[in-house]
């Protein structure tokens, strides 16, 4: 729903060049600390595969999401049990 066209001119403009510059035009000095992978990532995240943004990268996203869900839901149960026990009167 409502995705922008594949390559947005703003987002893909390179920090050190003009909006029309493309990765292959780079002079050697511009590979200081790595290549620009943003256009590839833009393609990846704009694939119409119906996946929500938090799962868009596939397996690593799913693992992290499931871990977070397990910890939060497990934690809620632990929390309720702990609060129940803490609310029991202590006999001297």
């Amino acid at each position: 729903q409502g995705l922008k066209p594949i390559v947005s001119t703003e987002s893909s403009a390179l920090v050190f060049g003009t909006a029309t510059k493309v990765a292959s035009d780079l002079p050697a000095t511009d590979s200081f600390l790595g290549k620009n992978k943003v256009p590839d990532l833009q393609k990846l995240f704009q694939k119409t595969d119906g996946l929500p943004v938090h799962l868009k990268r596939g397996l690593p996203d799913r693992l992290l999401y499931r871990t977070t869900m397990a910890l939060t839901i497990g934690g809620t149960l632990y929390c309720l049990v702990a609060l129940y026990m803490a609310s029991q009167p202590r006999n001297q």
Partner: protein
Amino acid sequence: MAHQAHSFHMVDPSPWPLFGAIAALLTTSGLTMWFHLNSPYLLMLGLLTTTLVMLQWWRDVVREGTFQGHHTPMVQKGLRYGMILFITSEVFFFLGFFWAFFHSSLTPTPELGGQWPPTGIKPLNPLEVPLLNTAVLLASGITVTWAHHSITEANRKQAIHALTMTILLGLYFTALQTMEYHETPFSIADSVYGSTFFIATGFHGLHVIIGSSFLLICLLRLIKYHFTPNHHFGFEAAAWYWHFVDVIWLFLYMTIYWWGS
């Protein structure tokens, strides 16, 4: 494929708000279990889940803006309002602690010896490490502005250098404050002087750590070409937050460190 007829951002369904609320529940009840029943596990779980939610939620914002193009000028305007309102709420947070400081220091009670600093309290010399800390944060304000100009001028290498220097200055401040905390002759339990000093400077220090972390994320994004000369709001938000942290320190220095000695 459907296209929207407006320039706003209708987000994908996301689990992070719910998980974030649960993380807050675990953290607060974890504090209770730690304070009253000496058990830190629920608190650790709460802090862990809070961190996980923050990482994934903000990761998704970067994906939506930089990779999916959802951050139109209208959306960016909303983000700007949001950041400004958040910083304003933080200003009020600190205002409370400054109020507490002035409440106790303007009319010191007989229990304190009728004076401020209270009898027996040896305050830190404001012209020693605290003055150095002031210089460090002011310098970092300059370097972050330099980084911003470098970004708008499309000078990638210089932007990376300037932002790195900003982060190093922030870490230097934190190291100096940690050292100072160890060296103070008074503790948080030493009357209302200790309470106001450590709560106000302690929360400030926490905000320096948060600000440094935000700047570090921006540095990584800068290196990965996420920012353009015209569109780099994440960096601007971090810079605003950093200037706020600097200003809070200036008020702390003038009131608690200098006037309060």
